[in-house]
């Protein structure tokens, strides 16, 4: 499997990765909310020169039903070029695709036919539970010690959630990552600062508290995640926990600066119990510790209760529900998905403590149901959710479903899937590509997008 020269999609630094060729294919996780038919990885043509631009050109079904495909990643990426643990002759060849509900882990080979990935291995939930004690697989990252997988709980659906390692060549489960867990109990996303030997993890909740949808008592009791954790990446020990406070709930996507010499990153918090606002926080190094500061507040919008789902009627407002964020490769622009209001925001975060709103579009939304020039029939539901940025920062792709059990709590009429693309100006500003609207086939809803060759949330780098 080893190659003679490094995989051409590996770049030593984010600066070099920005010059990568334009992606031609996007891989999109698609799941059946009814859990009757198998979920799939869909392949979307994103090559503007192609006749099938903006349409699904391939699909690989999972072996069984009920996976709830959600996030996924690659077996190997640019961190293979790191000097302390080099694996430069591995290939970025396999998509590592977990089932959030089934806890199965699939490996899809894209090399023989990139438009029709082939499943080469599936690890069953039982094996993962036995070897790691974990279940409910979420984020995948390729990194210094192979493939890292976050899991949200144990097989019974309780805590603690954590991270386990999978061999990036043989795809064998190697075991639990944590050596010293400290006070950490809840899990969700994770990533790292390779330049600072630091792992960062965030919190959602235990599987029991979200698999049937968000539980209002748990939410209002501030029992969902509200903390962020810092770890020694190599000693695998918990170093520090920061509690954002009892009014902040659901600490989700973590986006550390791509430049490994910069010790800061961004995390989105879905909801404030005080006023339903969402917020973005910047963590940073202060002396020998990590610190965090809120840098963006996105308020809820007043709304007619008749237009709101039962969960929100009493609040007479539609919350922004920031459920995904993504940082451009040059660490300059932060994209923020407001799944409730239907906004996609672009901020200039050149100064990470003073973000400036530089672009905004609206599509879907609980109340607004905003349309798209490429949509056939008017009002769209769902809102901007999983967002991915091309390596050069000029194209932004996103889809509209959050999570099977939570979708109907905010969009009771159901969600009709779509995927859209924005074009971004070199110095900011975003607009819809009118020719790119994927009207997702009924029966599946789209979630995370991964771009051929890597994107802005797939690779980490050891060199500035």
């Amino acid at each position, binding site marked *: 499997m*080893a*190659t*003679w*020269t*490094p995989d*051409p999609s*590996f*770049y*030593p*630094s984010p600066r*070099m990765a920005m010059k990568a060729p334009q992606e031609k294919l996007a891989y999109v996780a698609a799941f059946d909310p009814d859990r009757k038919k198998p979920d799939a990885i869909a392949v979307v043509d994103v090559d503007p020169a192609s006749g099938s631009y903006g349409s699904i050109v391939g699909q690989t079904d999972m072996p069984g039903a009920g996976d709830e495909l959600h996030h996924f990643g690659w077996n190997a990426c640019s961190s293979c*070029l*790191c*000097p*302390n*643990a*080099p*694996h*430069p*002759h*591995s290939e970025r060849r396999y998509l590592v695709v977990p089932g959030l509900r089934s806890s199965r882990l699939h490996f899809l080979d894209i090399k023989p036919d990139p438009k029709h990935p082939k499943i080469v291995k599936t690890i069953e939930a039982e094996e993962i539970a036995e070897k790691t004690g974990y279940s409910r697989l979420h984020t995948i990252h390729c990194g*210094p*010690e*192979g493939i890292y997988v976050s899991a949200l709980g144990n097989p019974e659906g309780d805590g603690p959630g954590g991270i386990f390692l999978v*061999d*990036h*060549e043989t795809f064998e489960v*190697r075991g639990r990552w944590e050596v010293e867990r400290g006070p950490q109990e809840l899990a969700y996303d994770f990533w790292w600062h*390779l*330049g*600072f*030997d630091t792992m960062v993890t965030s919190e959602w909740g235990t599987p029991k508290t979200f698999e049937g949808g968000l539980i209002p008592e748990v939410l209002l009791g501030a029992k969902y995640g509200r903390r962020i954790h810092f770890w020694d*990446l*190599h000693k695998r020990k918990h170093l520090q926990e920061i509690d954002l406070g009892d009014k902040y709930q659901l600490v989700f996507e973590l986006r550390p600066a791509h430049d*490994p*010499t910069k010790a800061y990153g961004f995390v989105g918090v879905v909801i404030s119990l005080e006023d339903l606002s969402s917020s973005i926080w910047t963590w940073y190094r202060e002396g020998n510790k990590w610190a965090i500061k809120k840098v963006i507040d996105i308020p809820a919008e007043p709304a007619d209760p008749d237009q709101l789902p039962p969960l929100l009627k009493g609040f007479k407002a539609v919350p922004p529900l920031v459920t995904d964020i993504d940082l451009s490769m040059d660490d300059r622009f932060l994209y923020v998905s407001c799944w409730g209001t239907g906004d996609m925001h672009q901020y200039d975060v050149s100064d990470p403590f003073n973000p400036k709103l530089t672009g905004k579009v609206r599509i879907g939304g609980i109340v607004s149901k905003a349309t798209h020039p490429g949509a056939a029939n008017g009002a769209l539901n769902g809102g901007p959710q999983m967002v991915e940025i091309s390596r050069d920062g000029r194209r932004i792709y996103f889809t509209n479903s959050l999570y099977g059990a939570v979708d109907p709590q905010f969009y009771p009429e159901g969600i009709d899937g779509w995927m859209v693309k924005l074009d971004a100006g070199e110095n900011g500003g975003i607009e819809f590509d009118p020719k790119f609207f994927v009207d997702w086939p009924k029966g599946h809803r789209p979630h995370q997008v991964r771009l051929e060759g890597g994107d802005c949330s797939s690779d980490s780098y*050891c*060199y*500035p």
Partner: protein
Amino acid sequence: MTIWPWLTLVGLGAYHGLNPAMGWLFAVALGQHRNSRRVVFLSLIPIALGHAAAIATAVALVVGLGVFLDADLIRIGGGVLLIFWAVYHQVYGHRHKVRFGMQTGMVGLGVWSFLMATAHGAGLMLVPVLIPLCLSGTPAQELTAAGSLVISLAAVTVHTLSMLTVTGVIALSVYQWLGLAFLRRGWINLDLLWTVALAAAGVILIVF
């Protein structure tokens, strides 16, 4: 005494120094992170010392065993070990635990270099040269413990200086002028060559 074993030690030192996984790349990365050419140079010291320690371990093994065992036995045993190491390197070379990252200090860097060289079998690769050099006295002069020690130290020093020179020149050139972009095409699979070198050394030991 012939010059060839010494030239071989120099050549293998250069070969080890050339390999990004043996240290120059780490030195460059640390220099970039601290934005300092001085850090590049300083990092080379623990890298060279760690490498020397790994080589010295192999030399000590050969010389130490040479006191008790027949040279032929060491030769065959060394050959088998080298071939075993080549297979191990090929199959498990990718799964070493990562202990040291960008925040590591000079001591950590030295330990990293020692572990990296040991795991790669850098010292073992020298065994075919070390056996004739350290275990056989020239006809005119019987092998003595003291003589053996001097030759052993000289072998480690010669190899390490060669490795340090090559690694230093590359580290400086890359940090100062070349940049890292060439890695994308230029980082050929030295691990594969390395495995072949280990296996070849093993075969040479057994056959000749």
